[in-house]
């Protein structure tokens, strides 16, 4: 099977996005950020705020768009975009005040939490180990190789096909079973 260069690049991006989406769907972002906060507090809190506030700002932008449609003459998109940005900055100032009030500037390293593993945690660990093992085994068996030039060539030998089937199955394993919940790994 041969795929052109554009298709190959698109496929790579798709797989990368899919892997990150699956990761964020099966790992609690707050737990992840708590781990990172022990290393780099400000970076982790910034990431946390971005995660939390991105949908809020998206809602703000939708509201501004609706308000623009309620004006007698539809204003220029640039004016609405500028006002949306100004609104986001206003909100950022309010969030900064809220963080100050929580003692952000004198924050200390968070403690290490020793919580028992849930069924969901076990499934995530199993999936991660299985994906790593399958990837190593595939390489050791000489399968999974590809040529990116002049066009991506995907091998279709039996070992390649086994890897193609197993890797997605393992990636989806955390979502199997009654305890699986998107985004919260405490089941």
């Amino acid at each position, binding site marked *: 099977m041969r795929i052109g260069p554009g298709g190959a690049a698109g496929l790579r991006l798709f797989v990368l996005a899919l892997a990150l989406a699956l990761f964020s769907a099966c790992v*609690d*972002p*707050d*737990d992840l*950020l*708590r781990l990172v*906060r022990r290393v780099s507090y400000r970076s982790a*809190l910034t990431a*946390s*705020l971005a*995660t*939390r506030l991105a*949908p*809020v700002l998206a809602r703000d932008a939708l*509201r*501004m768009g*609706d*308000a*623009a*449609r*309620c*004006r*007698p003459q539809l*204003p220029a998109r640039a*004016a*609405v975009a*500028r*006002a949306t940005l*100004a*609104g986001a900055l*206003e*909100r950022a100032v*309010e*969030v*900064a*005040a*809220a*963080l*100050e*009030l*929580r*003692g*952000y*500037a*004198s*924050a*200390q*390293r*968070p*403690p*290490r*939490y*020793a919580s028992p593993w849930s069924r969901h945690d076990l499934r995530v660990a199993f999936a991660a180990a299985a994906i790593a093992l399958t990837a190593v085994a595939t390489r050791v068996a000489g399968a999974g190789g590809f040529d990116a030039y002049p066009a991506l060539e995907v091998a279709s030998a039996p070992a390649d096909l086994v890897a193609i089937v197993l890797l997605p199955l393992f990636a989806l394993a955390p979502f199997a079973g009654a305890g699986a919940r998107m*985004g*919260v790994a*405490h089941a």
Partner: protein
Amino acid sequence: MPEPVLRAEGFGYRYPSARVDALADLTLSLEPGSFTVVVGESGSGKSTLLRAACGLVPHFHGGDARGELEVAGMNVRDHGPNDLAASCATLLQDPETQVVMSGVGAELALPLEQRGLEAAAIARAVEEAALELGVAHLLERRTDTLSGGELQRVALAAAVAGKPELLVLDEPTSQLDPVAGDDLVWLLRRLNEEWGTAVLLAEHRVERCLAAADRVLAMEAGRVAFDGGPAAFLDWATERSPVLATPAARLFSLAGVGPPPVSVKEARDRIHGAGLAPASTEAPAPAPSRSARPALRFESAWHEIADGPAILRGIDLELRPGELVALMGRNGAGKSTLLRHAKGLVGPTRGRVVRDGGVALLLQNPGDFLIHEHVGDEAGADAIARAGLAGREHEHPRDLSGGERQRLALEIVLEGNDVAVVCLDEPTRGMDRGWKEVLAGRLRDLAARGLAVVVATHDTEFASSWAERIVLMGQGNVIADGSAAAVLAGGRHFSTDVARILDGAGGALTPEAGAALLARELVR
């Protein structure tokens, strides 16, 4: 005698670039375990006082502070919000900006982690705060799935998890519906009684929290104009500042039946005790009927979403020119969606909406309408004059007060040609009574010009002051439609304080109507 949790001695403050002091010559002290409500009109200095108590003033806002203000023994001129955070927890108006983590459990743990507590101590504090604030069932939820009331409750739980000595709240109920707002006030009372946390709460709707308070501070032009108990405050407000008095207090004052009551229960008991309970069985007057062609008509209008319940379920409704209609109902009842259909921002999935002219819609946040750099660019000169902003064309719209933003936004949407219907969605959030009266006057003016006016609101006191017809919605249906007296006097939740005090007698909703009814009983 325990040390006061807050002590001010000649404290004053002026914002950067301001010409007048926001706070002046403030001298007071708050005892541990006290529950103090701060009242005053917009711009009176309530929020500045609270922001000084938590250290945002002067450290976050800048400006000049003078005199002494100590919180938990720390002078706010030397100690900022970070230093005060362990002793003074603060909750501001907008719950969306109070919550910073993705999960509720992590949100409650964050301030404790920042303080360097051990994991076991954090786990216990989170559990206890969650149980106390009634959010234990939300601990596993993501914060972006919570309602406004739930979000504010989670923010409060995060604020009190560290057991602060003082809890400062700046109009925490202004973004909530009445049920969530009342729940929050009673949670505060419980925290105050069971944990001994001193509470300093600013609130526009005085009647909502007066019964829970030990003490009231009334602010005027940055100074404390009154400092005393709730009953004494009502005496003072009735005399000096009626706009701050509760509906029950105004009812008693107008009827001349003794000192103002602090709560609806006290008012009802005293009226029954004095044998003044009106026995009127008159049917409330119906809404005025109009025969003109409807300005707006919903014909079996449905709004169904693909992966959720129907928001509107076959609405049939007509609005005629000159009608003053209040659209009421709990959060999620379909009020905002109905107004969006009226404007045409969304279309019905079944049925239809027929308009006999243009529809002007003012959405909930007036700031969303202000998109230019200068007030003068937002609307024409006439509209700016009608908004009362003539001479301020060169100011930035974001420098306007909440009430001014709203007046300007209303005039912007009314600038269209051929407007036949005016819709406003929750226009009174965070507004003091003075602004509400101004807005009610503007609504009457618009109706007198022949426009149909429909306002979605939770505020029964506001609705009773201008609406002639109430449309009550529930689960996407119209569940009551009649004159204001017929709908509000017979309700429990959707009712005014005066109607509750008088058990709905005579359809009296306002202090003026109630006082007239009581006067008739006094004559008998």
